[in-house]
């Protein structure tokens, strides 16, 4: 800017061109910020509404026209939510299910992913095709017999019924195989020459290198499990098994339908953990999505 200011006395065409280039280099296309900001507002408005609504007293919620900023912010909605809808146990259920499902996927999918990517064995192609082929099968096709199966295993009364069907997913295998394929074969050959056992190669050499892919798979699986709705809705027999989305959905279609404050507070509670996980691991997440998406 200093070079520009010394020349300010006589702004020529060249100066203006220079200035335009400077703006372009630091800002890009200035006019684009207006529609993008408008779009951003549309994207986050529901979240702001959710947050503001969760702290609104009942009078504000029923106000016509609606108030955006609570006149007297209160945490009453949250208190009532946790006492009346038993959100504490639903929250615990969601955490237990999501953590177990995530752990299972990290272990089982990386094991098979490594075998498919780097080991040679008969039936390898068949296993790969079988697992990848089921990526297209909708959950809907399996949920009826799965329900019968889980009910017959006497698991429909426990959280295990929510966990078991999701412990090993084809998507995880696909992701881990893609990533492990990109690691150099020489690493494994060198380890073999040094006398490292096959399983030790996986455990000591490959697994530490797959940390970025594991982080991606972990986040995706955690978010997926946390937000999963159809299966817990089908399997959960009573309130002690409800996960947060199930509890929230049933509350919103039941007699609490008009109690918007409580529902919005519930939405905040459902959203907060995934927001934290996402913001903490955003970099891994985006990088992982990008690498699996493009290969």
């Amino acid at each position, binding site marked *: 800017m200093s070079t520009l200011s010394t020349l300010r006395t006589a702004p020529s065409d060249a100066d203006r061109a220079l200035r335009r280039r400077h703006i372009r280099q*630091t*800002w890009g296309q200035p006019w684009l*910020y207006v*529609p*993008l900001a408008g*779009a951003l507002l549309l*994207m986050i408005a529901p*979240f702001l*509404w959710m947050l503001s*609504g969760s702290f609104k007293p009942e009078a504000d919620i*029923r*106000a*016509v*026209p*609606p108030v955006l900023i609570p006149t007297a912010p209160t945490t009453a909605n949250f208190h009532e939510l946790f006492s009346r809808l038993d959100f504490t146990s639903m929250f615990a259920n969601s955490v237990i299910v999501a953590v177990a499902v995530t752990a299972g996927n990290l272990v*089982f999918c990386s*094991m*098979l992913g*490594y*075998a498919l990517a780097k*080991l*040679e064995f*008969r039936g390898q192609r068949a*296993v790969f095709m079988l697992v990848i082929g*089921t990526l*297209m*099968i*909708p959950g*809907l*096709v*399996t949920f*009826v*017999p*799965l329900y*019968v*199966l889980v*009910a*017959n295993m006497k698991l429909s009364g426990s959280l295990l019924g929510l966990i078991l*069907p999701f412990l*090993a997913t*084809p998507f995880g*295998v696909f992701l881990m195989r893609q990533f492990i394929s990109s690691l150099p074969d020489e690493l494994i050959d060198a380890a073999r020459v040094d*006398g490292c056992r096959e*399983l030790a190669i*996986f455990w000591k050499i490959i697994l530490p290198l797959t940390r970025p892919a594991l982080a991606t798979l972990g986040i995706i699986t955690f978010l997926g499990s946390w*937000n999963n*709705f159809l299966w817990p809705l*089908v399997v959960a027999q009573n309130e002690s098994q409800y996960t947060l*989305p199930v509890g*929230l959905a049933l509350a*919103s279609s039941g007699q609490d339908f008009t109690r918007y404050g409580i529902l919005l507070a519930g*939405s905040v509670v*459902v959203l907060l953990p*995934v927001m934290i996980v*996402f913001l903490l691991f955003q970099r891994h997440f*985006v990088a992982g*999505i*990008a690498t699996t*998406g*493009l290969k």
Partner: protein
Amino acid sequence: MTSMSTKTLPGRGDTHEPSTAGPQRSAGRRPFALRSTARGRQTRAAWILAAPFLALFLAFMLLPVVWSLLMSLTDTQSADLRTPLNVSFTGFDNYVRLFQDDQFVHALRNTAVFVVVGLPLTLAAGLAAAVALDRGIRRFRAVFRVGFYLPVITSIVAIAVVWKTLLDPRAGLVNTVLGWFGIDGPAWLADTRFALPVMILMAVWRNLGTVMIIMLAGLQSVPQSLMEAAELDGAGAWQRFWGVSFPLLRPALLLTAVTTGIGYLQFFDEPFVMTQGGPLDSTLSATMYAYNQFGNGNYDVASAAGYVIFVLIVALTVLQFRVLRDKD
């Protein structure tokens, strides 16, 4: 596991390098390990690594898929499901019944509208956002990226609840804002003309972030030298996009089109939470129909409906591969 033993037993074992002699000796109790070839050891390790996944996969994926197909071809109404073999085989009766049911046909049409309108809109919006963030602006990129992606990571149930309050005909924010401009907003979710379009727009709002993230990564992998060469040749921004970036984005576009399409064909959570499929079935999806049949104990009809959706998914995926695959 059978291929493991057949491959390891006829070992030409003693040919491998001497450095493995140490660890091999400790495994002396298992003679086949001692005599195994490098190939045999790999096979053994591979099956050990694959076994836990495959066991879970067989029990909770493959078995239900086959079972569901059998259910869709039988009459489960009178059967005791604890003995699933004790049912009568009825061929394609359930499928015939499905397509004779006006409600199912109506649900299929709603699903088709959801996909045909929603999918292109989602792809276009996500692509536009990605191009704007990649080439258009240089400041606050992270803010826009996180903001646009936020709906993707949110529970659909939480989103549905929030939108339901926003769209409340009387006290909702949407109609209040419209009122400022003198527009008397409709009843949205309670109006048969608006309920489905609103849900399609919600889906676009929710899913464009996924498309954006993958497209952004694709755009960033476009070599800068290629763009500069095109610019030197006098190609404008629009020409550079269609001529250089877009062909390279094709695999990413195919991936997002396929995954988003599969999701849209199964849409369920929004109508379940917001309208229960109403008003007058205007938001009833094929998946909701299947869920309702399941809830009524008609497991066979629900399974058949699941397979109809599965066939549609395969058809849509094949079509997308035809249209979007690289032409070489």
